[in-house]
């Protein structure tokens, strides 16, 4: 079975090599593809020098467009499973194996790695947890499904979902919106407990108060729009 790890990278030259090494040792059945989202550092040079497999975006598309490029690659190259992980080393490659086991055992379309089931590892700040609780509650009310960590960037999906995402994927802060879209269209989404590390380098894109407000408004609206016309599970 062909399995692909999608690694969106914007200025991640410091972390990429260790992320790839982690995948090769702890998730050996997975191929990987790095999406260089027009990085302004030497991410591209690092990929060339280390002989890493990468796609090079001519202009910066943001996280949504970059991840979508990965799903399109998975679709074109005939991958049956694809998983996205962050390029900053927050996610552990050993989790990929667990996600795959759960996807097969539960026979579902997507498995999300959640920090908040076992509450182990890096738990994010209080304010962020409150925000995630709100999004999680919104998704539960609108779709009837409980997703404890809708913002998780660690998600494994099957070929049906790969095709969906290759066709349509949100532009920015895509995770909660795209999960809601899947649930509304009747896909089966499960969660499993994973541990995450604190980000190794770089800064979160939503650390300023204004961008936090923008984030909450945009993502909440996105969830509501995606849920319109969906089937609510009883």
């Amino acid at each position, binding site marked *: 079975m062909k399995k692909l790890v999608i690694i969106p990278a914007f200025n991640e030259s410091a972390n990429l090599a260790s992320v790839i090494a982690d995948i090769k040792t702890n998730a050996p059945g997975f191929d990987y593809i790095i*999406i260089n989202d027009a990085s302004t550092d030497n991410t591209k040079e690092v990929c060339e020098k280390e002989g890493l497999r*990468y*796609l*090079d*975006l*001519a*202009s910066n*598309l943001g996280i949504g*467009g970059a991840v*979508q*490029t990965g799903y*399109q*690659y998975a679709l*074109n190259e005939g991958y049956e499973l694809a998983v996205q992980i962050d390029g900053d080393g927050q996610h552990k490659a050993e989790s990929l194996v667990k996600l795959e086991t759960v996807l097969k055992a539960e026979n579902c379309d997507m498995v999300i790695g959640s920090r908040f089931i076992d509450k182990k590892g890096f738990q994010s700040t209080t304010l962020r947890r409150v925000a995630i609780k709100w999004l999680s509650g919104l998704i539960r009310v609108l779709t009837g499904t409980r997703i404890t960590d809708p913002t998780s960037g660690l998600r494994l999906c099957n070929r049906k979902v790969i095709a969906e995402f290759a066709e349509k994927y949100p532009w920015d802060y895509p995770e909660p919106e795209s999960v809601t879209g899947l649930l509304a269209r009747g896909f089966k989404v499960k969660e499993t407990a994973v541990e995450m590390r604190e980000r190794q380098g770089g800064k979160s894109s939503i650390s300023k108060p204004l961008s936090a407000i923008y984030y909450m408004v945009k993502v909440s609206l996105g969830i509501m729009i995606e849920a319109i016309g969906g089937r609510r599970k009883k």
Partner: protein
Amino acid sequence: MTLKIQIIVIAVAVLAIVFTTVLIKKDRLGLKIAMPWLVVFVLIIIFAAIPALMDWFSNLIGIYDPVNMVLFIAGIFLMIIIYSLTMSVFSTKKKIRDLIQKVAYLESQIKKEKENEVK
């Protein structure tokens, strides 16, 4: 409306039509996208040439002052044009995104082919 302002308004509108036509001719504007503006300029000329028409029309839609009617209609027209611009900006963005994604994939395919040739 004094004759003076009538002439000024008509002259400006005619100039705007000439300007737009020249741009279309030089391929710096598309006829389809410029058409709403051409319609606006022609309407301005008609109303400036026959002010009685403006009184008649504002009466018709129940606005006392013709000036208010002009502002009201101008506002609505601008909203429609700007909204359609917002839509076309998004569709342009989407087309560019699709191109960037496709180019990235094709580039990687070319690279792969080349590597295979070397081997």
